């Protein structure tokens, strides 16, 4: 039985979308209970409620933040997590192997499961895809892991879980990426391609910045530096459209 969790409906357009979505879910035979987040019951609370009611598939309809909130409740649970990406990052779409709700419904219907890692901030905030620290001007970063300590200045740090997806195709590790800044030359032409300036990997890390910075996911602020990061490997049973992911019973 499927249980769907979505952000509150904000306007007529969204109301129409959810009406179409319900019809499509019914026609594909995967209709179920649908709840919308509220100040009284956020996504994590709704997921916990679904878990206690015995639902075996919980589907987050929304962005990385909503999906991560739901995923955090399902860590090491024998419950499938589905995601219908609405306003999701490109990274989440890569992770899922599909990019719109029509494709999502087909994938949900087939219910192919893969085991995915989930990241953890300060041992109580979960993230399924990635985080970022972004500043207007260069700031000082310190990344401390068990084997080394790295200091650098920059405007942008990305923290990513790739879960066996491109470009790195590995799991069980956090990736820390500093993208190369694009300098525009004469006539606005790019003088170099955007790529990676720094890439480090670790299973756990502590990040400090000077000055203190916010850590964001999908424009939602999750925490502020300093933060400790870790991951729980292979702990989420995600319904995936990626062919490369192994089938889980």
């Amino acid at each position, binding site marked *: 039985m499927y249980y769907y969790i979505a952000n509150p409906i904000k306007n007529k357009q969204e109301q129409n979308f959810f009406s179409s979505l319900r019809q499509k879910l019914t026609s594909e035979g995967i209709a179920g209970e649908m709840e919308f987040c509220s100040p009284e019951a956020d996504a994590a609370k709704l997921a916990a409620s679904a878990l206690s009611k015995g639902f075996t598939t919980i589907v987050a309809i929304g962005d990385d933040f909503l999906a991560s909130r739901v995923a955090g409740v399902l860590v090491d649970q024998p419950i499938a997590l589905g995601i219908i990406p609405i306003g999701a990052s490109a990274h989440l779409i890569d992770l899922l192997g599909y990019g719109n709700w029509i494709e999502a419904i087909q994938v949900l219907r087939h219910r192919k499961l893969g085991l995915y890692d989930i990241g953890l901030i300060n041992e109580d905030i979960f993230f399924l895809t990635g985080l970022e620290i972004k500043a207007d001007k260069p700031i000082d970063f310190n990344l401390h*892991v068990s*084997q*080394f*300590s*790295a*200091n*650098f*200045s*920059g405007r942008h740090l990305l923290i990513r879980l790739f879960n066996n997806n491109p470009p790195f195709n590995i799991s069980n590790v956090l990736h820390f990426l*500093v993208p190369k800044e694009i300098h525009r030359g004469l006539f606005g032409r790019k003088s170099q391609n955007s790529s*990676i*300036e*720094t*890439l*480090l*990997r670790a299973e756990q890390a502590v990040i400090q910045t000077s000055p203190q910075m916010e850590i964001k996911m999908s424009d939602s602020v999750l925490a502020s530096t300093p933060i400790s990061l870790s991951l729980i490997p292979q702990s989420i049973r995600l319904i995936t459209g990626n062919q490369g992911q192994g089938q889980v019973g």
Partner: protein
Amino acid sequence: MEVFDTIIGQNVKLQGNLTNQGAIQINGQVEGQIESESTVTIGSGAMVKGPIKAKTVEVTGEIYGSVVANDRVELMPKAKLIGDVTTKNLVIRLGASFIGKSSTINDTSSEKPAAKPAYESGK
């Protein structure tokens, strides 16, 4: 094109040990031990203070420490290596500087002391 597992950017100062199965590219400063089962590349402007152990080590920057490479160590023009080298193939390009002793690892992985490096000039 080499796909790197770890890249240390130009403005990164890293203290500690870097250990990787895959390739490592250093463009910044590292103080500590570097170990890879693949290639370690020390880029232009990079500086490493510490020992390096890898399959292949390619140097355009500076190393202050010993280098052990099962396959090859190559010092590009302007590279600077102060430390001992143990490898099967040592290539020193014209303009590179190397202060230290070199030893070879032969096919059976036993070491011979003081092998002659293969200079680019062919001498």
